[in-house]
């Protein structure tokens, strides 16, 4: 008896599946024991493989704006959790929760993002 006799919808992409991005690399440069919450303005959003990227302008203590690069999962993975190419736009005010980079560079691995609407999207079940 075939285990998958029941029809089940899968989402296929016409570009390489983002599931491969989950095993692509080990995320060694991110400190997954730490989380940071930063507020900023979206500069660019790329929903691509193997990793999407969210670039946001974040003001430091002096008020100067610095560009942060936040790494996301692949396009297919994000789509499963509700992301679309229109999820964020340049100019949007967002709050991101990240695993920061171990060396203090301006970037991190996305845990979740709070959109201007208040909706929270993440990369794992239970987060938007």
């Amino acid at each position, binding site marked *: 008896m*075939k*285990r*998958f*006799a029941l*029809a*089940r*919808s*899968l*989402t*296929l*992409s*016409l*570009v*390489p*599946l983002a*599931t*491969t*991005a*989950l*095993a*692509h*690399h*080990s995320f*060694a*440069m991110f400190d997954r024991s730490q989380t940071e919450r930063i507020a900023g303005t979206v*500069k*660019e*959003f*790329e*929903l*691509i*493989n*193997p*990793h999407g*990227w969210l*670039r946001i302008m974040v003001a*430091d203590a002096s008020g100067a704006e*610095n*560009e*942060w*690069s936040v*790494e996301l999962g692949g*396009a*297919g993975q994000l*789509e499963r959790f509700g992301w679309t*190419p*229109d999820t964020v*736009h*340049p*100019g949007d005010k967002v709050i991101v929760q990240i695993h920061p*980079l*171990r*060396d*203090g*560079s*301006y*970037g991190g691995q996305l845990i979740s993002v709070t959109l201007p609407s208040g909706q929270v999207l993440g990369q794992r079940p239970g987060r938007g």
Partner: protein
Amino acid sequence: MRAAAPGMPRSSIKAPLATLTAVCLMPLVAVAQQWKVYEYPDAGFAVQFPVPPVVAPSTFRTSAGVSLPMTRYAAREDRVLYTMSVVDFSGVNEDATSVIAETEKSFGASGRVTVAIDARINRQFGRELSVNGADGARSAVAIFFASKHLYLLVGESLPPNAIARSGDAIRFQESLQFIGPNGGFGGFGRFAGRGRFGGGFNPRALAACQGKAAGDTVQLDTPRGPVQATCVLVARPNRPPL
């Protein structure tokens, strides 16, 4: 923000083991940043650059004084230097562990290594470093050895205020992929190596949607039997003017 350290004049590219004899045949060109994937199947890797890289042959000298052929893929955008060097070790008898260790050691000699950690990319294991140069530069480094080649990636954010572009250097580091025989599982699906499913990505999933439109239902054959699937398009959003 890290304070810039006083000291030695900065060299544009960190020398890993000894002297890199760069033969730059073309000048580096800076244009507006638009990250793209650049695939080099013959070299077994793919990586993203924000501007088109210049590819040039060069020479790598080992600590033992042996000259090895090297190919350098380099670009500069804003105040970040992006360099991927692939050194051919096929003519010498060196093991991966020794080559990686010596390369890492050389970065410690030329700067302060703030992070040094084991890393895996696809099915290759290596090291990833963060290095603060004596001149205030910050570098994101990846060191791997596969198929008798040393893969040395350096994303160097230049002073002053090197931390300002540090995210770009990290992005460069994070974009490295091994493809073809180096790839194995993971990575860009269509170059994910040989094997039953092209190294983890089912090529039949891609083929099933060719010629189809978004929303079309197809049947996908899997090892566990046929399943219904839906084709979707994944599009990169156009960048609107700010």
